[in-house]
């Protein structure tokens, strides 16, 4: 029976669902778009979007791993983009990026500390942050966009921070790859990851074994904010401009990417590569709708449908594997 060999594999690798979905979509999109979707330029664009959304999704996956949720990452993304662009013309862009990413981490710390210390549900706290920092982003830009003219964007810092390409892929992808490697090592091969997943599996049990539950949760929120901030910097580096609405609704895409990628919203089971594949699938769908001239409004609707269907699919796949 082949299913006997597949079951343990599916049980251990929750990302198998998204791998199947990706393969299917790539084939369908390629076959139905007459080369408009599957060409070097378009794939490059998809990968650039995957890089920024993927960074955000990695952070959200970690928070989901602890059994919490962060819906403020879209606003963090926007704030970081604005800070970066505003500072990059005044100080070294590398320093500007550092400050912007630190601001993201600070927003994460704010969320994490509030949630851990007061026991308020993370959905409520990060809903508050979502609105606070979106409001701040709109207020700071007062309805206009902050931008850096293209000819001023020279030098290595701009190049490496999403401003250019190597071999047809945006440099943002380097950051995504680095983040994936570092976080995978931390999650699977270090004590921090063991404790993070333990907290998501059972807070009481983790606590009873001496795990510092609050610290663990706060660390996940900080990394989440930091990565959302980095995503914002890279997106700003690519576009060279940002307004107060930058990153809006991206939090929903990031959560959707995690769910598609096999992260269990109840906590304790996540896949980092799955979250990135989820981001890739969402970027691919978005791009497909654009090249097929479907009105962009349909994207959110389709996103919702796909998330529900995929979540059900992942769930039944897992049920089947556990039987």
């Amino acid at each position, binding site marked *: 029976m082949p299913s006997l060999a597949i079951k343990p594999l599916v049980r251990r690798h929750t990302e198998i669902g998204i791998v199947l979905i990706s393969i299917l979509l790539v084939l369908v999109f390629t076959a139905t778009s007459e080369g408009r979707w599957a060409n070097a330029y378009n794939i490059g664009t998809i990968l650039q979007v995957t890089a920024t959304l993927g960074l955000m999704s990695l952070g959200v996956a970690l928070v989901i791993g602890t059994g919490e949720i962060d819906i403020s990452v879209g606003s963090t993304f926007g704030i970081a983009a604005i800070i970066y662009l505003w500072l990059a013309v005044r100080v070294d862009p590398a320093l500007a990026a550092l400050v912007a990413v630190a601001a993201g981490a600070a927003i994460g710390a704010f969320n994490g500390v509030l949630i851990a210390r007061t026991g308020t549900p993370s959905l409520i706290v990060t809903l508050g942050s979502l609105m606070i920092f979106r409001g701040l982003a709109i207020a700071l830009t007062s309805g206009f966009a902050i931008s850096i003219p293209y000819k001023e964007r020279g030098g290595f810092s701009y190049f490496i921070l999403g401003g250019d390409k190597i071999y047809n892929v945006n440099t943002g992808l380097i950051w995504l790859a680095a983040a994936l490697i570092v976080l995978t090592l931390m999650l699977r091969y270090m004590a921090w990851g*063991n404790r993070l997943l333990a907290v998501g599996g*059972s807070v009481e049990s983790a606590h009873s*074994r001496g795990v510092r539950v609050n610290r663990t949760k706060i660390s996940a929120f900080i990394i989440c904010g930091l990565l959302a901030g980095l995503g914002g910097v890279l997106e700003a580096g690519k576009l060279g401009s940002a307004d107060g609405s930058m990153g809006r609704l991206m939090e929903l895409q990031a959560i959707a990417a995690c769910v598609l990628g096999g992260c269990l919203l109840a906590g304790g089971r996540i896949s980092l590569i799955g979250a990135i594949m989820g981001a890739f699938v969402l970027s691919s769908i978005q791009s497909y709708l654009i090249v097929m001239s479907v009105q962009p409004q349909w994207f959110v609707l389709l996103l919702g449908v796909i998330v529900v269907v995929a979540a059900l699919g992942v769930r039944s796949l897992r049920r089947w594997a556990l039987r």
Partner: protein
Amino acid sequence: MSSNHPLIRVTNLDLYFGVFHALKSVSVDFHAGEFVGLVGDNGAGKTTLIRVLCGIYAPSNGEVHFDGKRVTNFHPKLAIDQGIETIQQAVGLCDNLSIARNFYLGREPVKRILGIPFLDFNKMRDKSTRVIRTFGLRDNVSADDEVEQLSGGERQTVKIGRAVEFKNRVLIMDEPTNHLSVREREHVNELAIQLKEQGLLVIYITHDISQVHKLADRIVIMENGEKIEDTQADAMSLEELEAVIRHGGRTVEKDHMH
């Protein structure tokens, strides 16, 4: 056996869950090398009391002294570092992690590569495999298996094996023989006695009154959050003991018998 200086001294301990008064001015001493049976009806507060001792709950009032020093911060990490190992009721294992990962949760062994502390998987796997085999887990259960797949008895076995492996100064066992077969129960009870003889303080919670009457040096009875009896085991017959648990305080029962 017991020295005059108690290893754990609990004085006038109160604990509230919201408005519910779960522990009412409990005072009790525990000595090294002592086997203390903690008994009482469902909901009497036994688990709550030992969860203060192992740092899970901080008391609302009262004091805990460990080895002569006042405990000011309550956290399981601190209790474990002091040498208090606990087999918890209901909690203690994370379903989503493997046996090996659960085994070392909170005290993961590391191996440094380029100065970075990576988990020492070989050690985690080897040691936890050896322990679960010693405690008689089926051969087809591997240390890499997720706890989710284990039966109730297998889970309990992992918890007991882990606590015994890391035993230090105090072993608290909250209904340790639940889910276990007759033979496994005997094994666990023998182990508890051995550990006491090695000088550990063993606190043993159970509803098996006749068993604890045989095993324990001292028996503490709780009811409605209060300690209602604290006696050497041989100073009370099994029938008396059962009557106290059934009807409350011993004085009442004694008046009745006279």
